[in-house]
């Protein structure tokens, strides 16, 4: 045990603080807990001061890259004649990632309040929420929350002050992982195939309709109202100097209690597992992703890595979306990586050759390896193809496709070799299912 701190001390529910209240997702439920108070304070400030405030607070993007949110806002040129746009990336599709969807289902007004504040800051009169299409319950709640916000005057005519209207459009996507990439998202929102754009120009200069555009993740924007309401000093009491604040960690897989755990940045997986009952009874952690399948996998050696931008980076991976997918020893790592690679091949948009062709060949090789039909040199070939995608593709999808392959070869090369030597997969997939019988003699879950 690394820590004896109680969950009350280690967790910090802010966005999720009232999710268990029956009307949490309504305007009335949101207002009951100081909802739209951050907006009131922000609207009393000069837009540039709001940007500076968010920048000083140190809020960083929660969608994967961790870019400072205030700095993104600051890049928007001011005094130009062009319309400015805010586009919220709610295309949550990274395998393992499941934070924005429950957030929008239980607390959509935190996003809407954040949108109004951000639009005030960047002087935008029209914002969009690009929601992936495959989540109709969330779309339903967003439709209703936006209607309520219009009715209450937070959106619409003079929402940002006399003569300053604000429109908010909820836009449902149609099924394409690549649209989570911000420039592909913009192309998609313009009614085109979702394919990434060459940068520069960056969206801050030429984004939606070639106008200055900020693209932010749902959780980043939804974090702004509490920050404005309770202050940047309060925000900085959580997390570290470079990674301040609170965030949603999503625990999933072979753990005793999968779910959402909102905590200050820098909590460790060991702390999260210790407080939540560990792995499922009688099983041990084998490998995990810190932030979705595109972040290199880690093992039980990394249980004490602080889950913040620097900590996970220092361990050779990325904080990403904080999607902590935990797999125990019943899981075949080759099967896991093969399935992720099939996903990347399916979702590759086809624009650039390394990713389009490379992911296809990775899948062919992995199929052969999984069934033990490949030769010894094919593991090197696998790494070589991944190397030809990583950093050489048009966008980060290619890097993401290479990450599970590099990292699994780093930690589990021996398991790949067992597939080849034994002419097949040595694992029983039935043992990994949620309904598999627990191993004999086990009672409590163990972490590692």
């Amino acid at each position: 045990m690394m820590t004896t701190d109680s969950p009350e001390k280690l967790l910090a529910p802010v966005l999720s603080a009232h999710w268990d209240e029956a009307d949490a997702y309504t305007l009335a439920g949101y207002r009951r807990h100081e909802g739209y108070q951050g907006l009131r304070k922000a609207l009393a400030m000069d837009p540039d001061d709001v940007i500076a405030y968010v920048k000083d607070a140190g809020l960083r993007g929660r969608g994967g890259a961790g870019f400072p949110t205030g700095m993104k806002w600051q890049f928007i040129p001011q005094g130009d004649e062009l319309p400015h746009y805010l586009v919220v990336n709610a295309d949550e599709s990274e395998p393992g990632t499941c934070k924005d969807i429950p957030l929008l289902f239980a607390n959509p007004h935190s996003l809407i309040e954040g949108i109004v504040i951000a639009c005030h800051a960047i002087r935008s009169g029209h914002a969009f929420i690009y929601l992936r299409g495959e989540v109709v319950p969330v779309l339903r709640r967003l439709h209703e929350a936006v209607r309520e916000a219009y009715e209450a005057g937070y959106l619409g005519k003079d929402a940002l002050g006399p003569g300053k209207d604000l429109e908010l459009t909820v836009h449902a996507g149609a099924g394409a992982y690549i649209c989570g990439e911000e420039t592909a998202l913009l192309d998609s929102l313009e009614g085109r195939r979702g394919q990434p754009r060459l940068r520069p120009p960056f969206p801050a200069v030429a984004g939606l309709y070639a106008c200055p555009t900020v693209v932010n993740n749902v959780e980043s924007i939804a974090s702004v109202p509490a920050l404005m309401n309770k202050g940047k000093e309060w925000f900085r009491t959580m997390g570290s100097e470079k990674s301040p604040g609170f965030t949603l960690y999503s625990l999933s897989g072979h753990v005793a209690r999968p779910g959402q755990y909102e905590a200050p940045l820098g909590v460790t997986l060991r702390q999260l597992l210790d407080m939540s009952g560990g792995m499922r009874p009688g099983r041990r952690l084998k490998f995990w992703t810190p932030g979705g399948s595109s972040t290199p996998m880690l093992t039980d050696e990394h249980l004490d890595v602080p889950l913040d931008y620097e900590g996970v980076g220092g361990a050779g991976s990325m904080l990403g979306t904080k999607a902590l997918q935990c797999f125990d020893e019943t899981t075949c790592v080759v099967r896991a990586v093969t399935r992720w690679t099939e996903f990347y091949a399916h979702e590759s948009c086809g624009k650039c050759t390394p990713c389009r062709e490379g992911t296809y060949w990775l899948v062919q090789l992995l199929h052969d390896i999984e069934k033990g039909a490949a030769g010894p040199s094919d593991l090197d070939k696998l790494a070589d193809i991944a190397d030809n995608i990583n950093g050489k593709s048009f966008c980060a999808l290619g890097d993401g496709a290479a990450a599970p392959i590099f990292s699994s070869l780093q930690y589990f090369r021996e398991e790949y070799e067992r597939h080849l030597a034994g002419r097949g997969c040595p694992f029983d997939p039935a043992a990994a299912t949620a309904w598999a019988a627990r191993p004999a003699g086990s009672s409590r879950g163990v972490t590692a």
Partner: protein
Amino acid sequence: MTDVGTNGEAAETRVEVGIPRMPAPDYPADVRERLEADAREIIGRYPDSRSALLPLLHLVQSEEGHVTRTGQRFCAEMLDLTTAEVNAVATFYTMYRRKPSGDYQVGVCTNTLCAVMGGDAIHDSLKEHLGVADGETTGDGKVTLEHIECNAACDFAPVVMVNWEFFDNQTPESARQLVDDLRAGREVSPTRGAPLCTFKETARILAGFPDERREAVHASGPAGPASLEGLRLARGETGPPRVVAPRGETEEPGEGA
């Protein structure tokens, strides 16, 4: 494959030789008039009309259950695009169906985490139980079975989506019961989301027209149980660790599907 659409038109997958196809037929006048009014409302939400293309494709899908050549022609005419431009977009996104399908789209997540937790077993079980392959529809036109990618519900794995509503923590048994209920016409409610409507009605919501059932937005409460795990711990509500295996048997009556 020689799938034939409702209008007798060849499905996109068929390779054709010889003379090009004739332009798609238009909608009947009354349908066209109704859809045009909807389309104008959608287009009005965007500074640039082309942004309305994805919602319009959802709209035409809500009319016919899949995106037909007629639907594509309609989108093209409303947005002053060519049908080739519309087709290029319609075929890029997986939610647009290109052939007639069932009233209920049953999607089993088989991305890594759900697959390992049992999604593969559920998918196999449903294929056998329904007697259809992946992507096919049952003979009664009720259920189309598909494997889907990660649907952002990993803490509820394994997940099944029906018409894009959440059926969490599924087992092969619960999933077979689910499709039996759908085929028998029994009312089915998701673990998170509203009582099911048909695929066409779902597509209309996706086009940007709020669910006409006023109570639907309140169905299934603010959050699923897994979403609240951290909150409960933070409040000191510890309790005994939840038994994970077998998860399907630990659900409260009425909580699961």
